[in-house]
């Protein structure tokens, strides 16, 4: 009998727990530890942020589902890792602290045979002075509550625009090393379309601000893609859409301070500049949670488990951009020091960025961090679950299930406006996620055909279909496992 503890119930944690429970018989214990009481389908936060969906449309409570599926659920947050146990406890454990009413603040040693750290990122708003959701007229769509607050603010401004007020909207990244440009990209296009729907588009000046060097970088060094019968750079496609929608842009911008209606940033020329706004949505940087780890004697071994995010089977040797390769990226997401610990999804420490690193003339790093959200999170979580199942069933030490982001495809179905007949979506697929310049030297490291873009109403339908399909899957309804990650 084995006990598998999953930390986190986001996309990666929930996928791992679901597959473990389906494939392991009931003598094995699956425990999920998450401070969140709800599962949320994060990609649809965009639509909450424009008032076209309610938070309850994109979430459901975890406790009833887990009770029904025989998954033990603790509404608690991880505090520290003890992979060797301690003087009183022989088994490895995670110290957790309950956050639910009734036992709030109580701590428990949750022992495990296998541990999946799927805690995702900490939304590091503190890294940018003055950036806090709902303050200084700057918002976020990183959670459904943030998205709802953003919509409340935007709705108020739309009413003012109807009275004739002109406003400035600033959307993009709120830190020099933010990731998730895709979410901000979706949001700016959705906001633009909503303003047109409310007949106030002419009252708003909309600006994209980003730490990307080029438009369409998305933290993935941009891409060369098939677009109809043409081959197009992602920068050209995004530029075309922005120009067509009258959205201006500021690139290579590391936002470092936010005041009431003013974003301060440094650009790659080392200039300190500022941009005023009446409404902003700025994605913060992501960081690890700052977990500590201790060995059996109580000595701090955090360095063996974490470098911000969790250390896995990546090559972390520092080397220049020219020497980076897909082989640097992890394949099994297993911690090298403790083989019974894994970190799929955003929780693993990437070996380096995917985009070419750039510094300002003052030496400030202004480079998008690598994205690991959505499909890669689900795929890596499933392969981690499959490897653990094999280890349990076959006492197998060798891991057969592998999934490097350098040998994995991903789809980004970016909403560009909501509406069954008026909506739009920009569908982009990429293969591989991390460009393999040796394998595909003439096509910017990607395989054309598998890397393509498409714009139109069908993209919106596809995004909506994925919304319903993935919530169905997450609720573990009949044959949920047939829907791929």
């Amino acid at each position, binding site marked *: 009998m084995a006990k598998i503890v999953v930390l986190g119930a986001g996309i990666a944690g929930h996928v791992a727990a679901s597959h473990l429970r389906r494939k392991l018989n009931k003598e094995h214990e699956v425990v999920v530890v998450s401070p969140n009481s709800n599962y949320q389908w994060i990609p649809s936060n965009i639509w909450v942020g424009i008032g076209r969906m309610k938070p309850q449309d994109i979430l459901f409570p975890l406790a009833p589902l887990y009770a029904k599926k025989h998954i033990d659920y603790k509404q608690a947050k991880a505090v520290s890792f003890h992979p060797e146990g301690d003087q009183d406890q022989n088994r490895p454990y995670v110290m957790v602290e309950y956050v639910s009413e009734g036992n709030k603040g109580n701590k428990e040693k949750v022992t495990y045979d296998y541990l999946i750290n799927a805690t995702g990122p900490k939304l590091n708003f503190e890294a940018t002075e003055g950036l806090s959701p709902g303050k200084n007229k700057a918002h976020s769509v990183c959670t459904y509550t943030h998205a709802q607050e953003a919509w409340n603010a935007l709705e108020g401004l739309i009413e003012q625009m109807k009275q004739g007020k002109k406003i400035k909207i600033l959307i993009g990244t709120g830190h020099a090393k933010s990731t998730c440009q895709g979410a901000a990209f979706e949001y700016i296009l959705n906001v633009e379309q909503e303003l047109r729907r409310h007949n106030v588009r002419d009252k708003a000046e909309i600006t994209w601000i980003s730490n990307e060097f080029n438009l369409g970088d998305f933290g993935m060094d941009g891409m060369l893609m098939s677009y109809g019968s043409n081959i197009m750079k992602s920068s050209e496609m995004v530029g*075309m*859409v922005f*120009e*067509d*929608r*009258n959205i201006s842009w500021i690139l290579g911008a590391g936002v470092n301070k936010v005041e009431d209606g003013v974003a301060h940033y440094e650009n790659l020329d080392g200039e300190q500049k500022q941009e005023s706004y009446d409404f902003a949505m700025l994605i913060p940087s992501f960081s690890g949670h700052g977990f500590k780890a201790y060995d059996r004697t109580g000595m701090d071994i955090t360095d063996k488990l974490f470098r911000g995010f969790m250390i896995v089977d990546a090559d972390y040797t520092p080397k220049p951009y020219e020497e980076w390769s*897909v*082989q640097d*990226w992890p*394949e099994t997401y297993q911690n090298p020091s403790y083989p019974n610990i894994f970190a799929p999804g955003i929780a693993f420490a990437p070996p380096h960025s995917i985009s070419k690193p750039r510094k300002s003339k003052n030496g400030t790093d202004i480079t998008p961090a690598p994205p690991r959200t959505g*499909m890669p999170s689900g*795929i890596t979580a499933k*392969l981690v679950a499959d490897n653990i199942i094999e280890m349990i069933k076959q006492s197998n030490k060798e891991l057969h299930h*592998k*999934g*490097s982001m*350098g*040998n*994995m*495809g*991903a*789809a980004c*179905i970016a909403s560009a406006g909501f509406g069954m*007949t*008026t909506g*739009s979506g920009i*569908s982009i*697929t990429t*293969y591989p996620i991390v460009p*393999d310049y040796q394998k595909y030297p003439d096509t910017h490291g990607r395989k054309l055909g*598998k890397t*393509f873009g*498409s*714009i*139109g*109403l*069908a*993209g919106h*339908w*596809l995004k909506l*279909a994925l919304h319903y399909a993935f919530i169905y899957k997450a609720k573990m309804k009949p044959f949920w496992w047939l829907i*791929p*990650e």
Partner: protein
Amino acid sequence: MTRRISKYKRFMMMNPIVQFFKFIYLSIKVLLVVAGGHGGTRSA
């Protein structure tokens, strides 16, 4: 504002009948890319 998408192209992008077939095509293509397998890179 600079018009970058022609009227014809916009019509094609927003025509529900054209887009219905595009939806089927995209669904299959996305499925093939995403569910088309993944693996390691070091032994390749």
